[in-house]
């Protein structure tokens, strides 16, 4: 269904993927210390001015300043272990350069870069030729690797999420995107409209209808209602 649709259904990162991250390991401190990105050498206004001037020396500052932002947005929508993640982050950074003139400072630079990255993910998923499992990280086989600590509330939460995923799959992808981008990822309506290449009014309408459809489906799902009545995990 989604491969034929104009609007692909969004994907999301899972807390438990990769499963190894949830376990505790006793290792020397130095061995776990990942080198960090250095602090950018230019402030935002200097950085933007340099890019607009066409100064290639700004590339390092741009990379170190906005890569975590783009990385976070891509991971939120696509998952941390997706095979295309690195390419998409790079693509988002280049999109920031090519569209820098559209940034008029009406929102923080982080928010704008995050929208650009989300738009890149949106376009990418729409272009994907082969259909992949939507929300595959949420619906994956992580339970096989679950620790005993996971077996209680966490397992129940994951099971609930898998059911939610089936409901999201069943509603119109445009509405699912609007709901996930706005309510789950925190983009505002203007950003949702930019990301999904629609108008603010259309994004608002899809959001309202998406919420309604999802709520109706959740209420009609006896297994999920019973589970949620047990309290959020």
């Amino acid at each position, binding site marked *: 269904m989604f491969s034929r649709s104009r609007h692909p259904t969004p994907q*999301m*990162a*899972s*807390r438990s993927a990769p499963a190894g991250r949830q376990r505790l390991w006793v290792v020397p401190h130095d061995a776990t210390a*990942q*080198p*960090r*990105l250095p602090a950018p050498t230019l*402030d935002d*206004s200097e950085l933007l*001015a*340099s890019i607009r*001037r*066409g*100064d*290639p020396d*700004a*590339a*390092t500052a*741009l*990379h170190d300043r906005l*890569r975590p932002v783009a*990385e976070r947005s891509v991971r*939120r929508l696509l998952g941390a272990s997706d095979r295309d993640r*690195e390419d998409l982050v790079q693509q988002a*950074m*280049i999109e920031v*350069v*090519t569209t820098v003139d559209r940034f*008029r*400072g*009406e*929102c*923080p630079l982080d928010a704008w870069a995050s929208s650009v990255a989300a738009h890149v993910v949106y376009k990418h998923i729409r272009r994907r030729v082969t259909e992949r499992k939507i929300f595959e990280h949420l619906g994956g086989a992580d339970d096989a690797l679950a620790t005993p600590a996971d077996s209680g509330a966490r397992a129940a*939460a994951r099971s*609930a*999420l898998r059911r*939610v995923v089936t409901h999201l799959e069943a509603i119109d992808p445009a509405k699912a995107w609007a709901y*996930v981008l706005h*309510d*789950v*990822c*925190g983009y*505002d*309506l203007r950003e949702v409209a930019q990301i999904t290449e629609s108008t603010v*009014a259309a994004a*608002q309408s899809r959001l*309202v209808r998406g919420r309604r459809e*999802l*709520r109706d489906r*959740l*209420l009609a799902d006896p297994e*999920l*209602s019973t589970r*949620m*009545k*047990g*309290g*959020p*995990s």
Partner: protein
Amino acid sequence: MNGDPLDDITLLLRQEASDVGDVEAMPERRDEAIAKLAGAISARARARRRGRVLGALAVAAAAIAVIGGAAYGLRRGGRGETQTADLARVGDGQGVTLFQGGAPIPPDGRVPEGAELRTAEGSEARLDFDSGTSVTVGGGARVRLVEQRKAKRFALESGSVFAKVAKLGPEERFLVATADAEIEVRGTAFRVSLVPPDPACGGGTPTRLEVSEGVVVVRHAGAEVRVPAGDAWPRCAAPVAATPPKVEPRPTHAPSHAAPASNLAEQNDLFDAALRDKREGRGRAAVAKLDALLTKHPHGPLAESASIERMRVLATTDRARAVSAAREYLRRWPKGSARDEARAIADGP
């Protein structure tokens, strides 16, 4: 569980989506990525240079058209409807530096749109607008004056600002954006600060808001919260150490027709009670309180906000009345902040 399964599920999904792992770690192919970015920056510059040559003729033609149009306008003696900027003056500011496009500019005269203002530690700067609004920038702050027209937008990058906002007209807006939140007001006094984030408070937001007068709207993580006078956001935050500056009253030609304070307090209380009902799923009670507010104070400062909330509550409880409420909202505030939402409801599925 609060009764609405969608809220619970949204919360669960939000938790999942927010856990993205370590994004600050040095990527393996950093040098390669930087080289590609440098290539993209150079390619963009080359494309723009090519575009400029072609664009020069068009610019010349446009200039002729503009000059001609202006001359025509002068001959006609007509008044243009272009938006005039209400540029700020730095009223009081030692240790203030202004930047425009990355280059420092003198802090005297009017502050141009897009300028960034930085204050030294321990100093303070005040920006005065002709409309009567004043913004006091605390020490060690960085704030960009993004827009200074009917909408005044500020981007706070560090430190704090205290704003005393004059009564705004129907199309005027006053907004302060931080890294993770947007604060919008309509005639009030408030302080926004950026502090080291506390993971146990407000989801780790570094933004702090304290409202002295009126009501302020905070949009954060996809949600909208109204913060009344005397309250703070997030609620769990300790007050920011800096005290509100003593802003000298200055003569203003802005009309002063705000409701009396006691009246405003009553409206705030009613509005807050309605929102509480809405949050706790008592839609009918919320609508009743909003109706009471709108009946008693149809032209009060909260009338538009109350109409929006009423429309939103009805949209989830009574479709027919929601459509009617949306149409009424569009009639009264055709350029209101929720016009798109109202149109979506009025047009219906």
